[in-house]
């Protein structure tokens, strides 16, 4: 099954264009034509030509950038669709599928009926497809690319005799060399003596020929379906009560958690999509502090989100998907792992209200600038690490705030100053402790540069951490000791 215009068909399915259309891909610093529709090909354009040249040939040509990643996703979708015909469906290059329909054709009557059904459905979906059916994978490839149709069982190479040698999946240089030798069709190639061919072109050519003839085996490798962590519940009558939605969610969770358990993963982010009868849908997203797959523990966490949903005229479909999963091996039941579980539960519950990223913990950072000596990371998913008990030559304040300027002169700490509308008099000053800036960090803030830190004890009791900047004279309060 070959899709000659997969990329442009994908784009045109979304937005039909009446007239020549091309997808462009930037190659070698030039926009080149990547895929064309039928009208554009009728204008004489071809793949790989520069887009500006194509515009010159055909002024009405419309273009759009190509997206190979989404084409691959589209082909994967088509592959999933094709499993309705037979279970053995594999990829064939970037724009083809290969189906092993052995033992499946009779379900559609016979082989031509099955092919007609495929062709009809693909046409309806807006995809141009060429389908070839033959005894071997190689022969089917040749038929799909060059003509299409069905060969009689056991026909072998005879059915391909009139097709050009390019149908044998050869590289371009080999095809041109064969044409120069006068071997234009597969039939001519098959009757030529094998030994000189092998000597001239290597074993690859004969391998392809034998694969097309069925003398060499070439199995179809079906791709395994990636695990999908989503379940759906469709209701005959719309529901609107919170308790009903929760009951439906409970049923979905049971099934989803069984699936997660089978794959030994746990959900980190769950999304519950509630589709209403008026086709609108609302989503409840639940982010968990740790990977979980216990329905009884997850269900109460949904309660808050579900309560906020506006059911409108009723909800008739529920879909629950684990959008992010983490490995969670099956564990021995015991007492040991209970405490972190309870803490993660609490983090999740608070996180559903204030946002999971707002619950943080301190992690040490490798810097001697006070405000950069630690980072605050979300507590969910991070492990505690690092040692805070490093010996420090001088005490550090308990509270740290952005530097607050005070009015003071000179390099020695002021004997009295005003800070936060309080007049403070210095009783004892300890210092200075010079902290040099990190020259490898770009910092254009007002407090970049050398700092001389002083610990100031005041008669009023407050113990403050002041610094003076010798390079840009000024005094700042940055912290307060216990």
């Amino acid at each position, binding site marked *: 099954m070959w899709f000659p215009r997969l990329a442009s068909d994908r784009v045109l399915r979304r937005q039909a264009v009446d007239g020549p259309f091309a997808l462009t891909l930037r190659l070698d610093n030039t926009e080149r034509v990547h895929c064309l529709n039928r009208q554009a090909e009728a204008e004489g354009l071809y793949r790989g030509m520069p887009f500006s040249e194509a515009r010159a040939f055909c002024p009405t040509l419309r273009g759009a950038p190509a997206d190979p990643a989404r084409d691959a996703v589209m082909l994967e979708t088509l592959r999933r669709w094709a499993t309705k015909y037979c279970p053995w469906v594999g990829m064939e290059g970037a724009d083809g599928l290969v189906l092993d329909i052995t033992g499946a054709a009779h379900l559609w009557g016979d082989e031509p009926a099955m092919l007609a059904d495929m062709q009809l459905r693909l046409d309806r979906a807006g995809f141009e497809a060429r389908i070839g059916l033959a005894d071997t994978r190689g022969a089917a490839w040749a038929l799909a690319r060059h003509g299409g149709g069905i060969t009689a069982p056991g026909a072998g190479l005879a059915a391909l005799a009139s097709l050009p040698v390019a149908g044998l999946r050869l590289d371009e240089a080999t095809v041109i060399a064969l044409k120069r030798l006068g071997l234009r069709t597969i039939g001519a190639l098959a009757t030529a003596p094998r030994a000189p061919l092998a000597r001239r072109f290597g074993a690859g050519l004969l391998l392809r020929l034998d694969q097309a003839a069925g003398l060499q085996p070439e199995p179809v490798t079906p791709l395994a379906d990636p695990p999908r962590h989503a379940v759906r519940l469709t209701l005959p009558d719309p529901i609107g009560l919170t308790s009903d939605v929760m009951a439906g969610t409970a049923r979905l969770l049971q099934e989803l958690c069984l699936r997660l358990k089978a794959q030994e993963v746990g959900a980190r982010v769950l999304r519950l999509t509630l589709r209403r009868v008026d086709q609108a849908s609302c989503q409840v997203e639940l982010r968990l502090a740790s990977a979980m797959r216990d329905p009884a523990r997850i269900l109460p966490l949904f309660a808050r989100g579900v309560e906020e949903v506006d059911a409108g005229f009723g909800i008739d479909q529920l879909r629950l998907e684990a959008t992010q999963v983490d490995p969670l091996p099956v564990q021995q039941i015991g007492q040991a792992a209970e*405490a972190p579980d*309870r*803490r993660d*539960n*609490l*983090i999740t*519950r*608070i996180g559903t*209200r*204030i946002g999971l990223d*707002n*619950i*943080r*913990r*301190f992690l*040490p950072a490798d810097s001697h600038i*006070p405000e950069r*000596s*630690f980072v*605050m990371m979300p*507590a969910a998913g991070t492990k*505690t690490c*690092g040692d*805070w*008990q490093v010996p*420090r030559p001088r*005490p*550090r*304040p*308990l*509270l*740290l*705030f*952005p530097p607050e300027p005070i009015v003071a002169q000179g390099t020695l700490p002021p004997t009295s100053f005003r800070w936060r509308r309080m007049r403070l008099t210095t*009783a*004892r000053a*300890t210092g200075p402790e010079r902290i040099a800036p990190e020259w490898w960090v770009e910092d254009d803030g007002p407090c970049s540069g050398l700092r001389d830190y002083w610990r100031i*004890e*005041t*008669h*009023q*009791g*407050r*113990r403050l951490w002041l610094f003076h900047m010798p390079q840009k004279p000024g005094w700042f309060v940055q*912290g*307060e*000791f*216990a």
Partner: protein
Amino acid sequence: MSTTTNIPPSLLPARVHEVCGPAATGFAAVACAQGKGDLLWLREDWQAGMLDPAGLSAFCDPARILVARTKNQTDTLAAAEEALRDGVVALVVIEITRPLDLREGRRLQLAAKAGRSTGLCLIPEGAGSPATETRWHCAPVFDPAEPTDSTLMRWEIIKNKSGTIGAWHVRWNRAAHRLDVVSPVGQRPGSSAAGG
């Protein structure tokens, strides 16, 4: 000044307490040091300034602390109630920015009772709630005797539901990891400065 006993009473578990004054954070740090297990520290995200884990490490291990930043006080109280009721964290420190009313204070007390965990509200001066178990006023005191790294503070109970009030001069002993009660500065021999 009426010093009733030699040592300040420790915070009654399963209750919510309040502390105000300039050294309230120091009081909370000492309270953090006295328990085991995780701690939750709730504050609103617009508030400037943060605990410095380097300074806090003199009191307790900063890895034990979970800091939750909330949008407003309603969220703070909801998270505090959730944490207190769950009881998995030993101490919940709540930074209060507007006074609690009767209902909010009572709900926190009930949550603490249900979860058997302790709550500590850092309140602005004069913004106490009637439901609190104890209310402390803490202020740092200049210590002429200790030349380096003194943490001399004056702790005063200004409200106590199940005991008497009193005041103490305390200092955190970082080497021994405990609280030392010292006599007030003014009553010490050879000192000229007045305490408090």
